[in-house]
């Protein structure tokens, strides 16, 4: 039998079993989740973690076995991330997001949201007035690809046809998918570009409003205002709210970078960035709804007043869901994080 002559060897031999037990438990946890452990193991985990940590301190002070110290550092770090990390499952996190995090983030960014709505309305008004006075402005606001023949030179009948177009036939789901990924990318840019002090986000909001104003001007001048409103708003309520929220999220980051207050710039960006990111996740969900309303709902529903009803319903649902005051979470729930 091998003889343990050094203190550090005896130290290691006495504690090895605990380390291996902790390592085996961590391997199981990392493969699945905390539910892979029995109740006894769950109770034993913090104890084993602390004993591994104390072993690490002792080993650093008394042992010169490099491999032992590397091993204990790795083991302690893994256990640390488990013991002090979030232990909720992916499903629980998603549930919490819909129940609380998303509306809270939207409410926290109310000031930026109002600014973005205002910017967009300014865009709408500007483009509307300009196109009313001189239809040639239309081409400046709307890229040719998006206009799809709805330009100022089109006749009223042709414009009307675009509003009640059964169009894309059985390719509706592909169309909806295209709309979603296009809009989602634009929204993500509005958010990500907020990094440049929020200026590009503001410009994107104004541009978005300009396009809308130009369209409205064309349709209203042909006496199709009401029908065009239904055509736009059935998905537009959801989509416009989503783009506004995306811009607000970007602005939030830009604002915290420009004016970090008493925090360091990096800390401020991190804190606000997380809030803005939650809001962005919600925006993507909204855009998915908008894409389906636009790609499928609008092609199936050809009656203007039903379109308006749906638009109003979505407006009410989003407002209530995002901004209605709700019960404060109890201390226990908040602590669970």
């Amino acid at each position, binding site marked *: 039998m*091998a*003889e*343990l*002559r*050094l*203190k550090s060897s005896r130290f*290691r*031999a006495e504690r090895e079993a605990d380390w*291996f037990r902790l390592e085996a438990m961590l391997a199981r*946890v*990392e493969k*699945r*989740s905390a539910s892979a452990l029995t109740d006894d193991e769950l109770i034993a985990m913090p104890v084993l973690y602390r004993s591994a*940590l*104390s072993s*690490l*301190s002792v080993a650093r002070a*008394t042992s*010169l*076995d*490099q*491999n*032992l110290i*590397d*091993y204990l*550092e*790795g083991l*302690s770090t*893994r256990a*640390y*991330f*488990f013991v*002090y*990390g*979030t232990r909720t499952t*992916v499903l629980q996190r998603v549930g919490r*997001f819909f129940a609380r*995090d998303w509306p809270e983030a939207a409410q926290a960014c109310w000031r930026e949201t109002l600014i973005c709505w205002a910017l967009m309305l300014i865009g709408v008004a500007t483009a509307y007035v300009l196109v009313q006075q001189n239809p040639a402005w239309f081409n400046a606001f709307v890229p040719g690809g998006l206009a799809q023949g709805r330009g100022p030179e089109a006749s009223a009948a042709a414009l009307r046809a675009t509003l009640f177009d059964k169009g894309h036939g*059985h*390719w509706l*789901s*592909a169309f909806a*998918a*295209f709309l*979603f990924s296009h809009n989602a*990318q634009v929204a*993500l*840019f509005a958010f*990500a*570009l907020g*990094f440049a002090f929020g200026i590009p986000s503001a410009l994107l909001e104004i541009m978005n409003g300009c396009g809308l104003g130009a369209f409205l001007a064309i349709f209203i001048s042909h006496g199709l205002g009401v029908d065009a409103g239904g055509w736009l708003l059935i998905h537009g309520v959801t989509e416009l709210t989503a783009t506004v929220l995306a811009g607000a999220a970007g602005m939030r*980051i830009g604002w915290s970078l420009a004016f970090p207050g008493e925090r360091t710039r990096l*800390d401020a960006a*991190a804190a606000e*960035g*997380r809030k803005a*990111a*939650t809001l*962005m*996740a919600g925006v993507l969900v909204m855009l998915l709804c908008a894409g389906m309303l636009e790609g499928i709902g609008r092609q199936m529903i050809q009656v203007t007043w039903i379109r308006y009803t749906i638009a109003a319903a979505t407006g009410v649902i989003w407002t209530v869901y995002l901004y209605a005051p709700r019960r404060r979470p109890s201390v226990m729930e908040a602590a669970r994080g």
Partner: protein
Amino acid sequence: MAKAPASPRALPAGPVARERELVTPEGVDLKIKLAEASERAAAFLLDAAIIVGGMTALTILIFILMIGTKGRGAEPIAVVWLLGGFVARNLYFILFELTPRAATPGKRMLGLRVAARGGGRLTADAIFGRNAMRELEVFLPLSFLVANGRDVDAILSLLGVIWCAIFVFFPLFNRDRLRVGDVVAGTWVVKAPRPRLLRDMAIRQEPDAERFAFSTAQLDAYGVKELHVLEDVLRRYDPVMLAAVAGRIRTKIGWAPNPTEGDGDFLDAYYRALRGRLEGRLLFGRRRRDKHDVG
């Protein structure tokens, strides 16, 4: 007081430069190491390869099904590429980083994980934030390179390339190798090695090794740094290297070799004796850094 010259040999520059303090609530510094930019780029390329591979496989699968349904599968293929490209690249990163190991398969292969800066909890919104920023950092440059060409003039392209380059190379210009997404989400990427606990080299294998008796002067020839090198050599146990190292040590400590002793046995015994000596002094609060450290 003796001058303490900053000897470059005493401070290994590479690994320590990315070492960061992470003090647990129990008061122990875990000394985590940050991932190098190269490792992170490699992890990202692996992930990108997995995503593209998965989508290609899905397309082929739909193609095969399409043959069965006589051409009605064209729409699913369009949906897969329109929606799949976007959803896959975003959900893939987010869902994998939400798991307890907080790493995508690419990061796992390279032994990396995402962690909150400052050691707090890694929350879902942080993971979402760092991945939403990826649109700006990777896919804007990509779409710029692809869509660019005829209708844009050279100055504008150049400005675009500069703009994109700022984001792509952002991690190289800060100490912590943060990309923009990490800045915004308050995260960083750390090394999460899973070293195995190997044999304790100080435990004797053969009981007859008692013939090596070193004097104190012979054991005072080296310090901790040399001990760790010796540990590496012994763990590898490469005969050529053993012979070379044994020769150097014998000369240095003036050891008269016994013709029957093997190089491995000699080094094994010397390692054990040296570690005993250095650990003994360590208990009295004296850590001898390396062989130049006399005091």
